[in-house]
């Protein structure tokens, strides 16, 4: 198990309020779990607890998190630093804010490689170029020498994914990583995550407010609302036999106000049916 959450509760120590009340899941190597919820549902805090970067005054008040079999509650700052990047990596919504605007992106990714993999500058540079190719940046050499402002949102997110997987982590957390992107670019990034998962055995935690995004990539879905897990199960069960009212609302939103408005239930069912016969 590369990542295990057991009944994780997160408390705001300033107010004493528990803002996440019971999130549990097991993530095997190469598996993908999705967390769906609104802003404020606790999905980002849950991710942050896994990365050891909870904001000040927030703490895991009960339950536990194990990364690669290790309980993280007793980790020192130094041990967390060693874990992040090499075992677990993450990408977030606004890629530009995670890059230094005045340093070329290639140098920034090479620096991550150099520090995490303890290799020479030249080897780090070569590895960064390889990574750029693996995240399907069209011209790695060119991008290497560009500044963040010269790249589109989609390209920046590819650069951040390259940095996140630079030290070959086992888990990648993508927290609303495609939300700010155009839908065609979102599709490419989701494809890329799927490709990395298939080729390297990377396990994924995909977090989104959109059930359909999560459902594209993940085998298991957790629906969070106001800090509580309202429903959790295999993706098809959540999509086609939702039990909780809130999950039904998320699905109804698509059926009534999404493209699905024009795709009859028969289309959807037959599509799924076809797949089951494969």
């Amino acid at each position, binding site marked *: 198990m590369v990542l295990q959450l057991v009944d994780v509760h997160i408390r705001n120590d300033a107010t004493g309020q528990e803002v996440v009340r019971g999130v549990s899941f097991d993530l095997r190597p190469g598996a*993908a779990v999705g967390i769906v919820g*609104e*802003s404020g549902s606790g999905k980002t805090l849950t991710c942050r607890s896994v990365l050891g970067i909870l904001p000040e005054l927030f703490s895991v008040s009960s339950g536990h998190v194990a990364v690669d079999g290790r309980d993280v509650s007793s980790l020192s700052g130094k041990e967390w630093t060693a874990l992040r990047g090499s075992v677990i990596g993450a990408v977030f919504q606004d890629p530009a804010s995670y890059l230094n605007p005045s340093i070329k992106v290639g140098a920034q990714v090479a620096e991550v490689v150099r520090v995490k993999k303890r290799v020479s500058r030249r080897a780090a540079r070569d590895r960064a170029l390889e990574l750029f190719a693996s995240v399907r940046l069209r011209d790695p050499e060119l991008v290497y020498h560009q500044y963040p402002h010269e790249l*589109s*949102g989609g390209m920046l997110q590819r650069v951040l994914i390259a940095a996140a997987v630079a030290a070959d982590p086992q888990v990648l957390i993508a927290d609303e990583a495609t939300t700010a992107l*155009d*839908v*065609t*670019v*979102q*599709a490419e990034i*989701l494809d890329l995550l*799927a490709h990395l*998962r*298939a080729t390297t055995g990377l396990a994924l935690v995909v977090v989104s*407010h*959109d*059930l*359909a*995004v999560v*459902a*594209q*990539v*993940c*085998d298991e879905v957790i629906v969070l609302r106001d800090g509580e897990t309202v429903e959790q199960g295999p*993706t*098809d069960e959540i*999509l086609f036999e939702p039990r909780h009212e809130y999950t039904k*609302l*998320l*699905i*109804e*939103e*698509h*059926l*009534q*106000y*999404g*493209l*699905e*408005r*024009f*795709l009859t239930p028969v*289309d*959807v069912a037959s*599509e*799924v049916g*076809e*797949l089951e016969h*494969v």
Partner: protein
Amino acid sequence: MSEKVLDVSGLDVHYRRRGGRLHALRSASLSVAAGETVGVIGETGSGKSTLARTVLGLVRPTAGRITIAGQEVTGFSGRQWKALRRQGIVQYVFQDPLRSLDPDLTVASSLVEPLLIQGIRAADARTRALAVLDRVGLDPELLDRLPGELSGGQRQRIVVARALITDPRLVILDEPVSALDSANRVRALEFLRQLRLGGTALVFISHDLGSVAGIADRIAVLYQGEVVEDRPARDVVVNPSHEYSRLLVRSAPTLASAARHRAALNGKAVTTV
């Protein structure tokens, strides 16, 4: 065919840029009838905001014609545009409804502002503010609140109410639901769907085909400044004719595509018969 509230034809817009000119709109045409909702969909840089800004007289086209409520406005001077905007025939709802209300003004003050500009008496303006609140389904009690005391969904309705208070023939909504969460988005779309029953023409601009498809009668797809497709919403979704529209439909996350993607991801080949 009912009356056209907006008729745009052959619109060309260039922006001056360092190192040349950017062709932001290329012979774009779009018409919207009374009571009709038209979705304009496109990615970043496709020209959709330029189209909205040109229709509002904020950007000058290099070619083409714009007719609003039967009046040709293409050659309007700045003063004429200002007068037109004051009449409140066309209203514009900004991208971020949560930040487009003055935090220091009560709901009532924000709502009546466009009417006071027109010289309408304060008492009459307040009566109309109450009526428009009712139209967007909000409690009259909210009139004396500040934006900070309202939920995101309520603020969004106030912004739309402020646009409606002048009885516009045309409302242009730029990404009106993108900043809302699911529950509020459903309510906002429901409410926008009802609006046009009052005869108001809506132009709904978005990068999100999903939310546009949810309420639009027709969808115009903008790609690199060109309207590459302008057909009934169902046709665009079910049978897109332009290559870019096809890519857009294919990319949109839907519950149906979810299963297909997951199968591909799990290494199962999806056989097509």
